[in-house]
Structures are given as structure tokens and as C-alpha cells.
């Protein structure tokens, strides 16, 4: 064998060539379409390349647990939420809510077609919501439709949604891509593989998905129905958007610096490197969510609100944000973050401030006394808690800061980290003291899932059972009038504040690096990037 080293090399070469066969076909469609575009235009196509972490589960918005930028470019929704946190027309031009709040009638745009040529009309809207409700679809996003029972086509451009009970969060749901309108003909044609061949009415058209590598979208040349927040209603100024999968964060930063991608998230650890780069702008986005320390209120001693209130007085949010997050956070005081509709500043102002003396006197009035080692003790039992959190940063780091702060008040604290699936499986058993986790959503009705006693076995992880909270949560989701609804959530924030099942800590702030060769990118409060106005910067 060693007399024939060339034979060995040839064999390896053949093996490689054999492997290349199928690999080449995956990329062939991509390069084929790209060269087609080049041939058609006399100038080179304008391509925007964006880094992303991990393949989306599915590009079918009804078959994915999370929707992202790719979905928002392929699809449109009936309404959109603007920077003012109000809902504005998109595919629906106007709507009327019945006096009993149990039905909403939408007037639709008449000038819209799906990218496969299917006309957009009331039938498409009905098809979309019927499919989302169908148990056979088994959609993770089905819960967002709440009490929706049926969708009725009134005339080709009028559609009515009927509810068994008023469901106030519906506008927020309709503005998310879970409720994006999908092409009925494409779904019927593609069946289960619609998620690999998605068709919507959005500013970009799906072109190719090389799993684990990239997703390529092409400009929708007929798009001219962009919602109000764009200065240009369409079509887009970039010919192509390429999403490049780069799972490793250092790789993403290097790719951004070298210009291989023009847009990428920037982790806190790499901020200084990007800040000093003259070719990159940084844009901050505050997430519409809260990271909190939640107590298992079904377990002693955490079932005692005084203990929870005392601990709340030991928390200092600024050091948590500085040390735990490298400054990339906004302190939060109520379960509804500052940038979500329904947040109430007056409640946030009354929240527990840092006051170790108050914490000590609350505990002492509750029967605790400091032992010789400084640990607060009641009935011979020292006060000690375990914080359960995820293994991924920043959670362990934040948990350590919280641990130090609570320990300073004479309470023993240990930290236990678990990966997501195990942690989420553990909380319904009630076999834990406290959890440090986060949520994100753009409507306060989300609190129904976290605090209502109906959800004890699932998302009510702190095991809160309180009739007044349940009543407020129900009122919040059934009160359609925004002013009255805001008042309900103010009451709710106050009640939760008193009960202190959660100590809200902060909202994450993320930094996005955008090459200076790209101009016109806007970011919504939800974090969604708006790319219809994006264009190559002049001079580059």
C-alpha cells in the first residue's frame, strides 16, 4: 500500500468527489438564480448579507415556536404595531369592533397579490386563520387566537372574526408573524413542505434555503403596500437579502468586521472591538421582556409574602445590569417592561427600593432573628434559598450578583443551573425555591399565562393562586377599550407588587452592528428590523 501513495490520494479524491455530488446540487440553485439576476440587470445586484445564529424551525409561521426577521420579510400581517405601541393598518385598511366586543370586521387592501400570483382577499384571511385553529395543524402559535371561534368572508375584501368572548390581545396577536397571511394556493400545493417553500405578500420573496448555510430572499418587484412607517411603500431597494448562518458569536463579529456580513448582533464581550471600528454603526434595542427572580409561592418559607418583600428590598438593579450584563440592560420594576403598552410609571415608582434596614425589620417583625453567623433564623431553621437558572450566560453571571446581594441581608443562597428543557420540566413539580428566568412579549396579557391559577401545571411557574389576580387577568383580556384596559393593568401591577411573587430585574438590551455601507435601517420596539427602506449608503 505504501508503494502506491498516489493511489491513496486518488482514492481520497474520488471519495471527496462522490461526496461533492449532492453538495453541489444544493448550492447549484442558489448560484443559478444569482447569476440569472446578474444577467438581467446591467449593474450588479444589490445584496444585503445578514448573520443569523441558527436555522429557523420552519418558514411556515404556523409551524414555528418563534418568528423572526426572515418571516417578517416574506409575509405581511393584517395590522402592525408602530413605535408608538399602537396598531396601524397593513393588509387591513380599517376595522370596526362590535359593541359587545365579540366580533371585529376588517376592510382589506384591494391591490395586494401573493408572490405566487394568488390574489390577496378575504378568502386568504379566512384560510389562514382556519388553518391556524385546525388541530391537525398543531400550531405552537394557536394560543394567540384566544377565544376566536370562526372567520367569515363578508365580501371579497371584508372579513369578520367572531369570538366566544371578547379577546383584547387579538390586535397584538394579529400584528405578529404567527398570524401572518399565507398563500392558500401555495399551502395546498406544497402541503407539509410549505415551510420549506413559503409564499406570502411581503417585500421579499423566498428563493433558496441551504440548510445550515444560508437563506436567500429576492426583492418582490410588485410590492407597493408597505405600512405607514416606511418612507417608501415599495419595492425594496436591495435586490437580494442573504441570511448567513454563523452559530458562533466570535465568528459573527469577525465576519462583520471583515465585511462578509453587513448586519450582525454584537455580544457584550465584543462591544469594544466593534465600537472602535470606523466602518460599523451600533444600534441598541431594548427587548420587550423582563428577566425576573420568581419565588415558588407554594413552598415554605417563600409562601410568606413578607419574606419575598424583604428580599425585594435587598436587590440593587444597577450593579446587576453593570456586572451581570456589562451594562446592556434597563432596570425594570414591574412585570410589564417600560417599552410595552400597559406599563405604569406610577406603580414602578412605588416599587421596593434598595433598603437593607427595611429588609431586616420586615424579617424581624416576621419572627426571624440573626444567628451568631448573621444568618436570619426562625424556629431554629436558617433562611436559605436555591436559585434555579439556565446554564447559558448571562443567567449564571446575573444569578451570582443576585446571590451576593441577598446574602448581604443574612440569607443563604445557592445557585443551580440547568439547561432549558430540564428547567422547564422541573418548575411544574413545585420542587424548587426560586427561578431566575426571562420572558418576552409585546402585550401585557402574557401575564395571564404566568400568574393565572388556570396555568399552574404549565406556565404559572411560581404557583401563584390568587383570586383577585385571576379576576384582573380575566378583565384584562376581555376589556376591549384601551383606556379601561390600561386601568386594569395598572391595578394588576399594583396587586402583583404587593404579593411580590416576582422581583422584576431588567430588560435585556441588544446591540446590532450595521456596516456603514448600509443606510436606512429602522428598528421597531419589538426588535424587528425594518429593511424596506434599507439601501446602500451613498459613496459605497
Amino acid at each position: 500500500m505504501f508503494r502506491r501513495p498516489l493511489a491513496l490520494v486518488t482514492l481520497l479524491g474520488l471519495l471527496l468527489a462522490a461526496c461533492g455530488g449532492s453538495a453541489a446540487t444544493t448550492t447549484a440553485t442558489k448560484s443559478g438564480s444569482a447569476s440569472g439576476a446578474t444577467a438581467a440587470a446591467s449593474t450588479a445586484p444589490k445584496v444585503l448579507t445578514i448573520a443569523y445564529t441558527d436555522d429557523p424551525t420552519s418558514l411556515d409561521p404556523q409551524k414555528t415556536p418563534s418568528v423572526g426577521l426572515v418571516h417578517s420579510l416574506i409575509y405581511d400581517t393584517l395590522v402592525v404595531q408602530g413605535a408608538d405601541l399602537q396598531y396601524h393598518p397593513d393588509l387591513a385598511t380599517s376595522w370596526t369592533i362590535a359593541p359587545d366586543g365579540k366580533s371585529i370586521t376588517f376592510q382589506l387592501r384591494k391591490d395586494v397579490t401573493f408572490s405566487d400570483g394568488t390574489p390577496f382577499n378575504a378568502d386568504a384571511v379566512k384560510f389562514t386563520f382556519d388553518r391556524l385553529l385546525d388541530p391537525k395543524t398543531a400550531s405552537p402559535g394557536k394560543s394567540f387566537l384566544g377565544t376566536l371561534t370562526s372567520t367569515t368572508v363578508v365580501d371579497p375584501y371584508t372579513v369578520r372574526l367572531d369570538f366566544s368572548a371578547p379577546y383584547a390581545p387579538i390586535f397584538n396577536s394579529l400584528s405578529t408573524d404567527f398570524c401572518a397571511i399565507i398563500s392558500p394556493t401555495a399551502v395546498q400545493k406544497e402541503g407539509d413542505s410549505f415551510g420549506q417553500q413559503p409564499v406570502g405578500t411581503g417585500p421579499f420573496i423566498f428563493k433558496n434555503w441551504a440548510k445550515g448555510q444560508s437563506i436567500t430572499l429576492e426583492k418582490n418587484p410588485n410590492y407597493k403596500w408597505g405600512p405607514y412607517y416606511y418612507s417608501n411603500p415599495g419595492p425594496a431597494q436591495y435586490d437580494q437579502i442573504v441570511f448567513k448562518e454563523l452559530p458562533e458569536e466570535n465568528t459573527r463579529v469577525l465576519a462583520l468586521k471583515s465585511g462578509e456580513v453587513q448586519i450582525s448582533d454584537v455580544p457584550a464581550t465584543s462591544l469594544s472591538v466593534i465600537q472602535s471600528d470606523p466602518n460599523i454603526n451600533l444600534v441598541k434595542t431594548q427587548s420587550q421582556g423582563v428577566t425576573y427572580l420568581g419565588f415558588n409561592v407554594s413552598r415554605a418559607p417563600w409562601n410568606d409574602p413578607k419574606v419575598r418583600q424583604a428580599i425585594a428590598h435587598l436587590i440593587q438593579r444597577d450593579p446587576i445590569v453593570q456586572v451581570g450584563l456589562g451594562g446592556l440592560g434597563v432596570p425594570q420594576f414591574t412585570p410589564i417592561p417600560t417599552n410595552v403598552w400597559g406599563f405604569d410609571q406610577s406603580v414602578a415608582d412605588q416599587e421596593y427600593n434598595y433598603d437593607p434596614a427595611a429588609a431586616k425589620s420586615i424579617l424581624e417583625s416576621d419572627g426571624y432573628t440573626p444567628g451568631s453567623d448573621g444568618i436570619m433564623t426562625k424556629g431554629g431553621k436558617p433562611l436559605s434559598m436555591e436559585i434555579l437558572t439556565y446554564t447559558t450566560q448571562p443567567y449564571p453571571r446575573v444569578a451570582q450578583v443576585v446571590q451576593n446581594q441577598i446574602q448581604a441581608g443574612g440569607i443563604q443562597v445557592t445557585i443551580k443551573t440547568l439547561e432549558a428543557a430540564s428547567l422547564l420540566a422541573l418548575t411544574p413539580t413545585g420542587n424548587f425555591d426560586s427561578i431566575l428566568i426571562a420572558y418576552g412579549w409585546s402585550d401585557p396579557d402574557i401575564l395571564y399565562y404566568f400568574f393565572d391559577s388556570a396555568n399552574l401545571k404549565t406556565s404559572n411557574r411560581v404557583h401563584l393562586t390568587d383570586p383577585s389576580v385571576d379576576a384582573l387577568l380575566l378583565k384584562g383580556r376581555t376589556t376591549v377599550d384601551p383606556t379601561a384596559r390600561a386601568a386594569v393593568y395598572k391595578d394588576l401591577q399594583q396587586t402583583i407588587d404587593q404579593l411580590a411573587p416576582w422581583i422584576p430585574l431588567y430588560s435585556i438590551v441588544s446591540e446590532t452592528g450595521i456596516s456603514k455601507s448600509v443606510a436606512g435601517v429602522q428598528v421597531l420596539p419589538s426588535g424587528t428590523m425594518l429593511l424596506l427602506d434599507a439601501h446602500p449608503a451613498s459613496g459605497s
Partner: protein
Amino acid sequence: MGRRVAAAVPVLFAVSVLTFLMVHLAPGNPVTLMVPDYASPEVVAQITHHLGLDLPWPTQYWLYLVHALHGDLGSSIRDGTPVLAEIAARFPYTVQLTLVALVVSVVIGIPLGVVAAVHRGRWLDLGAMFLSVVWVAAPSFYLALLMQVYFSNDLSWLPVAGYAGPLFSLAWLKAIAMPSTSLGARTAAILARLTRSSFLEAEQSDYVRTAHAKGLTRRVVQYKHVLKNALIPVITVVGLELGGLLGGAFITETIFAWPGVGRLGVQAIFNRDLPVIQGTVLLTAVAFVGVNLLVDLAYAFSDPRVRYA
């Protein structure tokens, strides 16, 4: 030969049972990871039923086995794509990376070991062995990061990450250069050390003394007699390493955004995507068993004393 192939069947069966059990004994319902926090219990139940995850797990395993024997490895519970298609799309990339890494490690490792042995005790030997210790000790992600900073960021010679085709083109070479080197460095170091010690051992044997006594030149003895015999254990290790590299390229694939099967498997583990986990583990086992079979054959080919019926 036939008996050796048949012996692989119980191995693969055991692998499938073990992976199935491990995934099922780990806490956590995969559906809780597939739905948003706010999904109602009914929605969770609906999806669980839809995926057949509410069946008792012996039934689930039986169904899996029956389908697998018909060549159907099931579909991803996350995105519904057939596992076999998903793996078939990813596997070529892993094989490309592995083979190139192996070539890199053989081309660097074996000559380095020979040079070290021939110059035993002198500075060339020390230098080569120092280098191999560094390569074994440095984690592959560290080496990868250093290369990315130097070759992509500072010099702009190579792309930071990602696959580029077509095969054997300049773009492909540029794309595969860093991943294969960082993946192959450890193997190169192992091969260098092994070649060196094996070479020194062979030098002590009787036939080498005979060859010298016959008056052959030092060079002829070293390359025709010593090296040829010294390489027998090296082939075994190359084979084992090939199996390991095929299954263990996950870190390199992640850092360099290489669309291979290792990354697919680890993503599946995080998502508790049972059919995909089963598929990738089974594939890795098949590859490992297959590679070892090939190594045994190569063994027989290079050493006339070894024969398989």
C-alpha cells in the same frame, strides 16, 4: 469478512436502544421547547399527540424500529423534514471536512514524526515534539479563533466561515483551509508522536540489523524497512481517528459555520429532537464501524501476516 459485517448489526441495535433510552430518561418534554411559553396546555397536548409522543415509550421504540428497518428514520419533530434527507444533505460536508483534515494531519504528522525519529535527541526532534504537544494541548476552538483573527481579520486571505463550492475550486480550498487544519491539528500531533516512537522501535528489530549487516545504505534501510513496518500501528490510529473525526467535528463545524452533520446532531440534542438524534448517532456508529472494517482490510493489505477469512 461476512461474519465481521454481521457483527456490526448487534452493535447498531445496541446503539439505537441506548440513544433512545438516554433521550427518554433525560427530563423535559420536547414539546415544551417547541411552543412559546404562553401555549395553553391543550395546545401542548395537541402537539404531543400529533407527534406520537403520548404513546408508551416501548411502543414508540417499536414503531421507530419497524420504520427504520424499512429505511424510514422518521421525521424531525421540530420541522417535519425526513431525517434521512436531512442527514443526506449534511453528511457530504462532514465527509469533505473529515477527509481533508485527515489528509492534512497525515501530510503533516507522519513526516514530522519521521524527522523527529531520524534526528532523535537533537533540536529538530525537540522542536517537532514541542509542536505536537502544543497541537494536542490547544483546544481546537482556540486554534480556530487564532487562525480566524490572523488569516481573515488581519491578512484578509481567507473567509471567516462558511462553505463555498464547487468542490476543488479555489473558493472551496479557501473555505476548507482553516476548518480542516484546526480539526486535523490534534490528529497530526498524535500521528507525529506515534510515528516517532513506532519508528524508533522498528529500528531496534532484527530485520533492520540484518539489513544494515547486508550493507544497505542508511536511507534505504530507514525508508524501505523501518518506515514501512513503523506505519502499521499508525494506520490503525488513522482509522480510529477518522471515525472520531467524522462524529466529533461539532466544535469546528460550529465555529466555521460548516453545514455538517455534527452540528445537526447537537442542535437536535438541545431541541430533544429524538428522530434526528437517533439518526445522527446511528449514522456516526455506522461510519465508525465501517471505517474500522476498512482499516482492518488495509491492515491485511499492508501486512501479509494479517488475513481475514
